[in-house]
């Protein structure tokens, strides 16, 4: 085989976007080293045209390992030249991968060229072993690269940088921008990485925060426009609103501010700063189905403040009861007046008294109705049934519980009822509680005493609705029931109230008792006394007449 001299000329490798077009252009001219024999001096260095050969290219890394190897079956043209693309040949078995698998990572790589002349599988002679060098200076109009570009030094771009096809731009280091940054798409900061802005953030469009917004270091947040929050707004510190606050949805205050009821700080909702308190407007007209305020505890609704109309008042059981009482009183008074007028000649003074009582009763009825209708508006309604006041115990150490009958001495209470100025019952859950103690000690030494309304009372023995309740025994705190027919006049000043429920236990019952409401049984005694007095007056008058007759005989 002729020894040949291969003069290789490398052309800069070109890589295109598609792996099919990756390759290194390789051109070579085949010269005959042995010269061409002619008469005289032989011709040396003539290229060899139309010479069949097999070219083998091997790309070897710095460790001497073949990263790629291929062979080309080719022949020189009429000018002894071959034009090949390294990367387009037939991959040999010794090649670990394809040309596109070569990792051009900047590490040194060599190119070994072997040649075997002829059409058959001749023996390969190594022709050249050269280093693949990087272009030190490249001046291109356009650079197209399908692989990665690794630049170890600074890069200066004198024109714009376009990253097309929606391809991402990944920066592992800092991005310093001295000029404006216009983002025509969205800006995503991923992996929970923070975005730190040392200057102001101006947003002309809508800002959607899919996570929380934290304003740290106690810096204020100023909103010159409206703040619309679609979901929960949690404020872990104070909220100060210096202007009107309109809540167009339900407002729930769920504060863990437990404490005693005499501490202002114990209350979740506090209204202050004005000479008025809380104003409540309900839609539509007020009635007993529209509550201004409703009170709940763990057992349900315990009270409410609701609207009251004329119809509500007319249908109110208490009003109806009061009207019935007044009606009864009116009948009784009318009867008394008639009786007194009938005996006016005998007892003109009584007629005057009854007349005055009638006027007073009429005035009381009129005043009640006027007051009732003029003061329609809201009704405080509760399961509790009495109006009570705090009254201190006469003996702070005395144990008194609800439902016990107490005697009042100078505004203080005790279970001793003999000689008491008034007999009252300790309330359980009054609807209104007045005379609030000024401090906790005073409160501790006081009891809620029912003045008016329904109060449960501990009763010894059975009870019937309508029975009068009087103390069982002074100091016991218990009561006993007296039927109306069994009521005596000396019991009148001991009446605590009237039972409004039955108690069928033979020993002890807790019975709902109406206290503080005037009863009509006094009328019965007064009427009886009056009848007796009238009878006595008649008798006296008759005696006087007989006496006169006797004198005149």
């Amino acid at each position, binding site marked *: 085989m002729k020894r040949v001299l291969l003069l290789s000329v490398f052309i800069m490798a070109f890589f295109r976007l598609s792996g099919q077009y990756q390759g290194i252009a390789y051109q070579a001219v085949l010269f005959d080293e042995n010269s*061409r*024999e*002619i*008469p*005289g*001096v032989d*011709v040396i260095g*003539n*290229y060899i*045209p*139309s010479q069949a050969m097999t070219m083998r290219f091997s790309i070897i890394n710095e460790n001497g390992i073949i990263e790629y190897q291929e062979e080309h079956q080719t022949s020189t043209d*009429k*000018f002894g030249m071959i034009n090949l693309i390294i990367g387009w040949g037939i991959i040999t078995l010794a090649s670990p991968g394809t040309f596109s698998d070569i990792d051009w990572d900047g590490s040194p790589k060599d190119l070994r060229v072997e040649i075997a002349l002829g059409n058959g599988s001749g023996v390969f002679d190594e022709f050249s072993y050269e280093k693949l060098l990087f272009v030190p200076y490249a001046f291109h109009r356009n650079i197209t690269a399908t692989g990665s570009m690794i630049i170890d030094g600074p890069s200066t771009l004198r024109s714009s940088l376009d990253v097309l096809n929606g391809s991402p731009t990944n920066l592992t280091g800092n991005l310093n921008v001295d000029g404006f940054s216009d983002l025509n798409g969205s800006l995503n900061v991923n992996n929970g990485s923070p975005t730190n802005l040392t200057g102001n953030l101006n947003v002309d469009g809508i800002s959607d925060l899919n996570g929380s917004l934290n304003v740290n270091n106690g810096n204020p947040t100023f909103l010159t426009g409206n703040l619309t929050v679609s979901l929960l707004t949690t404020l872990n510190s104070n909220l100060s609103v210096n202007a009107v606050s309109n809540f167009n949805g339900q407002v729930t205050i769920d504060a863990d501010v437990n404490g005693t009821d005499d501490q202002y700080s114990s209350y979740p909702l506090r209204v202050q700063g004005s000479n008025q308190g809380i104003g409540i407007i309900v839609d539509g007209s007020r009635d007993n189905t529209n509550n201004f305020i409703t009170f709940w505890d763990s057992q349900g609704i315990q009270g409410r403040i609701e609207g009251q109309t004329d119809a509500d008042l007319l249908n109110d059981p208490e009003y109806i009861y009061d009207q019935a009482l007044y009606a009864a009183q009116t009948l009784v008074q009318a009867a008394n007046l008639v009786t007194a007028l009938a005996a006016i000649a005998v007892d003109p003074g009584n007629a005057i008294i009854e007349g005055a009582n009638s006027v007073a009763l009429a005035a009381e009825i009129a005043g009640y109705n006027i007051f009732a209708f003029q003061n329609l508006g809201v009704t405080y309604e509760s399961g509790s049934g009495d109006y009570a006041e705090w009254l201190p115990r006469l003996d702070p150490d005395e144990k008194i519980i609800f439902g016990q009958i107490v005697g009042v001495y100078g505004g203080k209470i005790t279970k001793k009822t003999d000689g008491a100025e008034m007999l009252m019952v300790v309330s359980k859950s009054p609807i209104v509680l007045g005379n609030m103690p000024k401090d906790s000690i005073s409160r501790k030494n006081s009891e809620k005493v029912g003045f008016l309304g329904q109060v449960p009372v501990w009763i010894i023995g059975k009870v019937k609705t309508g029975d009068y309740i009087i103390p069982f025994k002074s100091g016991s705190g218990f009561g006993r029931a007296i039927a109306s027919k069994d009521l005596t006049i000396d019991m009148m000043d001991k009446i605590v109230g009237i039972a409004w429920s039955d108690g069928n236990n033979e020993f002890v019952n807790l019975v709902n008792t109406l206290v503080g409401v005037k009863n009509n049984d006094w009328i019965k005694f007064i009427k009886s006394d009056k009848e007796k007095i009238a009878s006595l007056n008649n008798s006296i008058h008759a005696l006087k007449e007989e006496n006169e007759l006797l004198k005149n005989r």
Partner: protein
Amino acid sequence: MKKLFYLITLSFLSVSLHAQQFNFEFGKTISKFDYKNSEGLRLENLNGNTENHLALGFKQPIKRSDFYYLAGLFYNKYGAISSDYNAGNYYKWEVNYLGFNIGFGYEFLKLDYQRNYRNVNSEEAFTFYIQLNTGAEMLVQGNQTINNQVINLKGVEQFDKPLILGLGSIGVNYYATRTVFVFAQYTGGKSFSVFKSNSGDTEKLNFITHTISLGIGINLPVHK
């Protein structure tokens, strides 16, 4: 070898001083390189050239016959051109040889001329002759041009070594006077090397020549 060549040439010169006929010849030689490379292949597109030919000669009749000896010196220029289209090469050779030849000839067909040309009473007449020569020649100067490169062939073994000649001529004399004659002659022959290459070169180069020449000669008086 060169010394032997020059010795023989001088010998002929000394003899020619006493020859009966001197002549001077000039003409054109159409030369062709008969070349085979070391593989026995000829060079394609190898064409000959026409170059100049000069010669001096003498003739000595053999015992008053029509045969005669001859000897001479000549100066021949050979040339050839060739090209290689594929390689884009152009080749040209121009070589000048100086040589001598000896041989014999035979005159025939003498027209209006006495048989014995040594007879001084001859009139104008044509005589034809044929000659056979052999000799040797040596390169005096030569150039080889390859493209734009000119190479001196002095010292190039293929050219710069004695070549043996084998020539055959045919010509016609015209005796203008008894003394002076002119002649026209065709000589064909071959120069070839018989010496082995010192470098082991197995290429073979011969020259095939065709010379058309004109000459003028004088008859020398015959010493009895």
